């Protein structure tokens, strides 16, 4: 009389189960990379290099975390790199003005941070309106903002960096706690909180539901447009934060900051195991994916390989990640 929903437990051993776990594989890949680079050049295994890797990682992970939410909804945000550039430039102008008016440095930095995040939210809102109101597909909508705001970076700055901000900015990015600098610690805490929010909250649940079956989400009473708007604003806000960090690191707002950052962000998310079709993705995957990307970049330079090889290695990692996804779906009996 009762419909039994049973499924034979996977006969695979625990070890085999672990090998199917993308996070576990990513940790192995990361360890293998660190080992390889350290063996090739012992300088790699030093605090200074780790600090550098982490400092590179901060803007990438910030963009990639926002991108993870977007990709889980089945969308894409190509504008994250331009948001980094434009928010960095706007906050640089703002902080130059405040500094010229002798405003206290900490106040200047705090206002600069808010300005960068607000710029990011604004561009995220534009993306959301293009997607939900003008009904432009996310790829095209965010391609438009990618171009527009990179263009505005050049137009507003004349192509040169914007400096003369607070002197104390760059000091903030010096490693203080082992390889971590203070913003790095803040970012780690932020990533943990956002990760919990994605995996444990109603907001996260709706993000997955929309990417999994937006019709089902809508008929369950979820306001899909409003939710997507929040997701694109979140992506913009985190990229704005990344723009502020790059300002701190360089002490100038550079119009080329974050250039092709969208590729790094999407690569990190995909390597981390998210599916571009939506409904799948994990913050831990994205964190590891972005860490692998920045490790490769630094590692190749340190062992003396031309940095352009990075692109090739990243391409191989993406291919391997997507291939393993297909393989896992296949072994699960899912759609291919």
């Amino acid at each position: 009389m009762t419909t039994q929903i049973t499924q034979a437990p996977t006969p695979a051993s625990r070890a085999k189960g672990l090998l199917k776990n993308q996070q576990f594989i990513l940790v192995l890949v990361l360890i293998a990379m660190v080992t390889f680079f350290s063996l090739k050049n012992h300088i790699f295994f030093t605090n200074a290099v780790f600090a550098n890797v982490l400092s590179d990682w901060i803007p990438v992970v910030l963009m990639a975390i926002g991108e993870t939410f977007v990709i889980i909804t089945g969308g894409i945000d190509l504008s994250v790199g331009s948001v980094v550039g434009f928010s960095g430039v706007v906050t640089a102008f703002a902080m130059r003005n405040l500094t010229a008016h002798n405003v206290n440095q900490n106040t200047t930095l705090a206002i600069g941070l808010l300005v960068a995040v607000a710029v990011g939210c604004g561009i995220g809102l534009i993306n959301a309106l293009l997607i939900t109101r003008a009904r432009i597909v996310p790829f095209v909508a965010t391609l438009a903002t990618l171009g527009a705001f990179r263009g505005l970076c050049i137009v507003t700055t004349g192509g040169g960096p914007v400096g003369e901000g607070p002197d104390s900015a760059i000091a903030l990015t010096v490693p203080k706690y082992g390889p971590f600098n203070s913003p790095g610690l803040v970012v780690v805490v932020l990533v943990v909180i956002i990760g919990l929010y994605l995996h444990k909250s109603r907001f996260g649940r709706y993000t997955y539901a929309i990417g999994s079956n937006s019709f089902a989400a809508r008929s369950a009473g979820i306001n899909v447009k409003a939710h997507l708007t929040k997701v694109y604003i979140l992506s913009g806000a985190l990229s704005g934060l990344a723009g502020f960090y790059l300002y701190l690191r360089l002490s100038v707002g550079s119009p080329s900051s974050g250039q092709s950052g969208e590729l790094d962000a999407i690569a990190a998310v995909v390597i981390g195991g998210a599916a571009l079709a939506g409904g799948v993705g994990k913050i831990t995957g994205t964190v590891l994916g972005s860490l692998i990307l920045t490790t490769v970049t630094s590692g190749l330079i340190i062992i003396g390989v031309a940095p352009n090889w990075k692109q090739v290695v990243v391409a191989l990692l993406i291919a391997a990640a997507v291939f393993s996804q297909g393989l896992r779906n296949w072994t699960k009996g899912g759609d291919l």
Partner: protein
Amino acid sequence: MSSATASASTSASTEEVLYEVRNISKNYGSVVALDNVSMKVRAGEVVGLVGDNGAGKSTLVKVLSGAHRPDSGEVLLDGIQRHWNTPHDAIEAGIETLYQESGLAPHLSVSANVFLGREEVKKGLLGKLGFLANKEMDQRAFQDLKNVGIAVPESNRSVSQLSGGQRQAVAIGRSVAWASKVILLDEPTNHLGARQAGEVLNIIEQVKSKGFGVIFISHTLPHVLRVTDRIVVLRLGKIVADAPTSTFDAEKLLGTITGLI
């Protein structure tokens, strides 16, 4: 009790009427989709709604579920006239609709699907921040599904790991768990194998015994004959028959649908 003419029913049985539409008409431009249609469902009754393609079944379902507003006519729930502006209004009033194409979110767990859009949050501050009470929802989903005869060993398993029949069972279970009055099932046995369809029909029988009014829309006449108490036949936007299932056999039902009888 009911007969081919609705007006013949006694006042005693009208009191039991849960959900009713009276003299509903709906046009799409010059196309008449529904022409003066009246039908009702009582508590604990399964009404089959059948008709050929284009007979107006989908339009009637959309009127019943609140997705469409009729051009004229009345919608009554518990004898009180209602106006649904959105499907959400109907859902709030206790009318759940299972559309054939809506389905579930395959990447989410069984319990996440059962609670989709009605999630429960943790107590205290974490709940205010939107954190979900997953354990409680898993347990409740398990119980709710079990109550309608669907046994899920783990309701935290992802729906993509279930078969088509199991998914449909969960989808129906979800409607039942939330409906307080009426359940509209639009082609729930479509695309299912014989055994899985049988399981779905078993669930419908259990749902009926719990006092819900069920409207069952299907093309599969043997399923309609097996599970319903009364059959309403639509043809070209008009009701051509409304009679107890016992008065039909497969041949007569087919003839009524096609107009050959």
